[in-house]
């Protein structure tokens, strides 16, 4: 069946099997392979994307359910030339090793920072409990998110001062 999904600001229409998961639609139909699949029980969070602004595990959403909605993936949150503060934070604080969980971590953390601009370590750890990382022990991921939060607060303060 036909579905139209706006991904990273661009509308895509594809003919998909009804059972197609959003993550497979993104990876296989659109070639956006930055979103990863790490499990089949919706626990690892490697497939986290934003659906109308909310973080979702794209392995638990059917592509057709995303019809008419806006999806943002890791490819859409920032670019190599203009990184999102979370991308910068993960780089600066060595918040990644193999990089496989990283897109999901960043997308999940982005939602946290939208709701809480200055999260404590405990809040960050609690928020990210649905994103598994086997490399970092999460230690530097906490610092990466805090680094991003500080940068975003600073940017916001700068914008407020400009207004």
């Amino acid at each position, binding site marked *: 069946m036909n579905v139209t999904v706006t991904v990273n600001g661009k509308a895509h229409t594809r003919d998909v*099997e009804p*059972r197609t998961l959003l993550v497979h639609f993104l*990876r296989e139909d659109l*070639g*956006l*392979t*930055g*979103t*990863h*699949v*790490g*499990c*089949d*029980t919706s*626990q*690892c969070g*490697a497939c986290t994307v934003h659906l109308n602004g909310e973080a979702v595990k794209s392995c638990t959403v059917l592509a057709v359910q995303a019809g008419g909605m806006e999806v943002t*993936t*890791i*490819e859409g949150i*920032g*670019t*190599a030339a203009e*990184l999102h503060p979370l*991308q910068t934070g*993960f*780089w*600066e604080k*060595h918040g*990644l*090793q*193999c*990089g*496989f*969980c*990283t*897109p999901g971590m*960043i997308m999940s953390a982005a939602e946290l920072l939208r709701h809480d601009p200055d999260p404590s*370590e*405990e809040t*960050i*750890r*609690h928020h*990210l*409990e*649905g*994103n*598994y*990382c*086997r*490399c*970092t*022990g*999460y*230690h*530097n*991921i*906490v610092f990466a998110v805090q680094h991003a939060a500080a940068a975003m607060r600073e940017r916001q303060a700068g914008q407020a001062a400009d207004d």
Partner: protein
Amino acid sequence: MTDRTDKYMGQALKRKEDPRFITGAGQYTDDFVLHGMLHAAMVRSPYAHARITGIDKSSVEDMPGVHAVLTGEDVAAAGTGPIPVGWLLPELKVPPHHAVAQGEVNHVGDIVAVVVADTRAQAEDAAAMLAVDYEALPSVALGSAALEDGAPQVHDDVPGNVAFRWEIGDEAALNEAFGRAHKTVKVNLRNHRLVPNAIEPRASLAQFSPASGEYLLYTTSQNPHIHRLILAAFVLNIPEHKLRVISPDVGGGFGSKIFQYQEEVIVLLAARLLGKPVKWAARRSESFVSDMQGRDHESEAELAVDAEGRMLGLRVNTVANLGAYLTLFAPAVPTYLYGTLLNGVYKFPAVHAKVTGVVTNTVPVDAYRGAGRPEATYLVERVVDVMAHELGMDPAEFRRINFIQPDEFPYQTPVALVYDSGNYEPALDMALDMMKYPDLRAEQERMKGTGKILGIGVISYVEACGLAPSALVGQLGAQAGQWESSLVRVHPTGKVELYTGSHSHGQGHETAFPQIAADELQIPIEDIDLIHGDTGRMPYGWGTYGSRSAAVGGSALKVALQKITAKAKKIAAHLLEASEEDVEHAEGVFRVKGAPGQQKTFFDVALMAHLAHNLPEGLEPGLEATAFYDPKNFVYPFGTHIAVVEIDTDTGHVKLRNYGCVDDCGPLINPLIVEGQVHGGIAQGAGQALWEDAAYDDEGNFLAGTFMEYAVPRADDLPSFETGHTVTPSPHNPLGVKGIGESGTIASSAAVANAVMDALWHECRIPHLDMPYTSEKVWRAIRDARGAGLGQAADD
């Protein structure tokens, strides 16, 4: 070009490889698409042990998109040989390990058949529908149960299920030592089984070109050359150069991506038979029953001390469960990587260990992060703590008085190894200071009677990594070399590509290796890139495992770089019309000593090396060097780890409250990367101690087949970690570096276990419980101990 700083080595540079990962531009195996690609799905055995009495291909051949169904017969007909073992022990019994089962399945998840279809969904639909008839056979899962009289036989050609019996150390000397013991303690320990669970599931994509006879394989591997060797020489019977193995970005390995897997054989074979590229990507539920698992020892350990608390001897008897088949390094893990490390950091006059390797109807067991050394460290450090408790000695002080002393290195242990260098006491002291150890002990006392108990686990470890030299490991049974290669290619512009046979799947090679090169070549790190993971581009390589990349691969790079600078200096001297002895390589240039301004840059030299317009008489053009480096010995990192747990006596819940460690891996190439390795290692070891358990029932049904049953540590399970370092270089490699990839895991299971048992000893005199310390297990133990009149009464 940016100015080069004084030294890149030792700097916490952020990683060069990260931009692609943080933007979603990493290229993992499952991200690759080849034109016309088909998809394979595996039909896996639901039985732990069964005879396959029939497979009805026609049940699925007409399903949409299906191209082929391959069975064990088809694989045999194609001339594909069994997957070999890479480490042989005397009288080792090796049951054949076929890519697809031939008549019999031996563990849940064993591959029965393969369906290839246009799409993955079609292949999986058909795989689920394939009609297979089984005749269930008796099965056994626990190593010790497989050794019992009358136990089910896993393989006809492995009598009594014993794959090998192995021993190390001087048993007579040990018995003599025990004869003069003041005190002995005996502990039975289970080091339970784990699933590695790299977050990227395994995947493979193969292509065959009939015209050239060439194969291409993208696969999730830590060591692409090993795959090429095995697949070409032992399985497919083709010349090695007809197979190119590319291991692109790999999402973690932890050992599980070392081995030659069945699915890699299958996609290559299917690609040839069907004339189209074939991809397979594991679902996590497949990973659980097809990735090689880790640990699974049942041991009896006995420690003897004299009246002063000096250790006299350690006696160990271990049953190592190898699973259904012997995979690549499986025989080495519970023997040469385990038995040789049972001396720990102590001055034991005698150690003796017996190991029985047993086959069972479970997923095969092979190297998992630490591979034998976590098992050894857990055993030694657990029994040392039990003895300290029995003696009423502080566990840290008991360790201290038994340490090998710094002036005793190189140190010959009673179990074959010669430790290269070490200085154990400063690491212990630094860790005790870091964690404010006396304050913790005072807090432990204060918490008595509050319903919460504090446990402090101290362990001191040494580990042996960077296996070497090749001749020695060959004598011990390795069917592989253990050297590493490096190629340094300088372009005419002075830009440099490094090639290593090591592989990075999270370890940061693309940053650390250029750091080494930038210092040796004295050029900016931005001008240097590392290439790895492609047999079509590297000279050769044995890959990444056993914390060997820096010590062996880094050393190979250093030797290749020295060849480059030696040649560059010859060219520079020629261009400067000076003798080589008068030219120095300093501050980024080749210059005539004492003649300011008389200098040539690396670029000048690189350009002339390629133009060859003006080279010294007889010197070859070009600026490129390859080194094959075979170390003289293993390297021996060491350190002290301290875990602090808080146990709720009403619920049995264990909270890992604090964790601090001091590791010594020699000089740090990149402290940021080293810290990251330590953090991740600690999390994996703590995972084993507290949550993870690859549990089977007695018949070999796997009870922990998804992340819902198998608890990997999550962000909110763990505290932040405190880390520190002492630096004791290895005397025998050109960088002085040791390894750090596995230390965290080797140390932390034991540290967390000791913390839990420290709490339970102080609360209710429980000497030992096996990991993992689930709430239920801890609660029951406290209840039983109190019911038995132990516990608080004993403290009063």
